């Protein structure tokens, strides 16, 4: 009898503990099931911590100083990854470069995210003429030749910093997420709970940011993660073509652009291979995490 009642109590206690899983625990379970995504996440955290941690100690000015006595030194004891044609430490440039590239990617992703989400939500929610006008403005941005304008900007803007570069990229990259969020907002605003919120006397802006925004948040997180990966690649690509940063501000792209010299490409692998691998692994890792997040946000695709 006693044992019986005890077990009944146990069951009761268990029942209380069962709560529907929160967002974080769903993501956690998804990551545990998807080992590649988990490894990617750990890799990302390590790289970010390492790169930002070390760049506190490293001095960018010191690293980009030209030292004519140690040109093109192969990897050795003094320089872990050798030096480039200016005698500059490649390892140091790799660290600083990764930091710069990541900073730009983060900045661009966050800024495009902010603009895109607000723009898309307002356009989708208010609909009608507002939507029409806002979408035509968006179309205008969409047809501007991105690369050409960036090249022109590089020529015009005298002092190039991470901020100016991010702003230029943001100006041409917010449209995708805005369209995505708009379509979701169009869907969401027809649901009854929005009508219900209106019947309570909730104002439009409050409905947009308090009711619709949380309901599209999973989409925002996933899209921004995947955008992060493509932004890393985009920055590197522009720098590689010579439209990114000057050599005084190393980024993964500038390191990669040394490979345009056939001699470097063939005989001095230490200058460009680490940066290429860094780009490759960073993009892959971010992508893997993004895909895992996307699965977590959709119950039908979940593995965990």
């Amino acid at each position: 009898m006693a044992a019986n009642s005890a077990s009944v109590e146990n069951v009761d206690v268990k029942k209380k503990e069962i709560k529907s899983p929160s967002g974080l625990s769903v993501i956690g379970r998804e990551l545990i099931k998807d080992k590649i995504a988990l490894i990617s996440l750990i890799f990302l955290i390590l790289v970010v911590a390492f790169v930002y941690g070390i760049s506190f100690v490293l001095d960018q000015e010191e690293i980009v100083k030209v030292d004519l006595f140690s040109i093109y030194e192969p990897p050795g004891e003094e320089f872990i990854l050798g030096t480039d044609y200016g005698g500059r430490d490649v390892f140091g440039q790799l660290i600083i470069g990764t930091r710069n590239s990541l900073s730009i990617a983060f900045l661009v992703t966050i800024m495009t995210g902010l603009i895109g989400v607000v723009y898309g939500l307002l356009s989708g929610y208010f609909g009608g003429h507002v939507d029409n006008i806002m979408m035509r403005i968006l179309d205008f941005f969409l047809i501007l030749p991105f690369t050409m304008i960036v090249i022109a900007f590089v020529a015009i803007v005298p002092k190039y910093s991470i901020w100016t570069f991010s702003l230029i990229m943001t100006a041409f990259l917010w449209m995708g997420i805005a369209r995505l969020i708009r379509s979701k907002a169009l869907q969401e605003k027809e649901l009854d709970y929005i009508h219900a919120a209106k019947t309570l006397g909730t104002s439009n802006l409050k409905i947009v940011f308090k009711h619709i925004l949380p309901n599209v948040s999973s989409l925002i997180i996933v899209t921004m993660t995947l955008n992060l990966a493509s932004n890393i690649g985009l920055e590197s690509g522009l720098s590689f073509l010579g439209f990114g940063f000057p050599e005084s501000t190393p980024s993964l792209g500038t390191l990669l652009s040394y490979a345009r010299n056939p001699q470097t490409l063939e005989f001095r692998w230490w200058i460009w291979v680490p940066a290429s691998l860094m780009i490759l692994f960073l993009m892959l890792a971010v992508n893997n995490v993004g895909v895992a997040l996307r699965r977590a946000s959709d119950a039908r695709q979940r593995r965990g």
Partner: protein
Amino acid sequence: MAEKLLEIKNLNTSFRIRDDYYAAVDDVSLTVNKNEVLAIVGESGCGKSALAFSIMGLHNRTKMEGEILFKGENIVNISPSKLNKLRGKSMGMIFQDPLTALNPLMIIGDQIGEALLLHNKELSKTKRKEKVIDLLNKVGIPRAEHVYEQFPHELSGGMRQRVVIATAIANEPELLIADEPTTALDVTIQSQILDLIKDLKEDMNSGVVLITHDLGVVAEMADRVAVMYAGQLVEIADVHTLFEEPLHPYTKSLFNSVPNANEEQEKLHVIQGIVPSLQNLPRTGCRFAARIPWIDASQHEEHPELHEVKPGHFVRCSCYKHFHFPEESKEEQHHGIS
């Protein structure tokens, strides 16, 4: 004389389809008094919900003409901020589908609390929580403190509908619009919810507009009934008169369509045809004529008006005087031959 709470005068609500406007609510006039349940009955697509949405001002991009007087003040096309002061405070709405009428990402407490917060900014957080739990108890939710912290998906349909009702009555509105509040619920929960709405009405002395297609619900709840067909009111009467002595062919057909357990029937009665779509609606003549083709066209009015047959009993079009069901006429003929 009962106090008028809501008075609708010649309301037209038109939807835009391509470049033209089509009236989904066509020249509707009615009144709702305090402490009264007015039921609006009709088939799917006849404009019941469009009427409810018009009263609450929920339509986007529609043309609204006429007057909706709420306590004497016209609320058609008033500014959103003025409307927002009324909505939730003086007017509440209960939605049809409790599964979608709650924000899936907000806990129950916050959803009900939002209504309180919007119209009473001084209320402190703890007071608000107390009031929400009071409301949850009022609508008969057990373990209210526990439910306060839960998300909508953790509750059953009946519970959710109670939460929707609690949200609607949070500020004790004088006018409560219930848009098919029981359609999505099973029968046992239905009667509980209806009783609840009735009790709340008595408590708050408010007027209720009950939209439904369920005649059982009407019989149980309503004081007066307005029958709607194709955007127009075709008959208004108090509930006893309407059930005992329906006049308009459409009302009669509706009652005839309800299956009767006491009679053995081989076939259920159906009304011929379907409700014409908004674009194909005949704009002149009796709109129901196409569905009772055995009635001679000369019996219909050219511009059907509402006629007051008895005090408080209105019927549209004169065709009701000559209406009979086709089976009846067959029987008559049969008798005639034998």
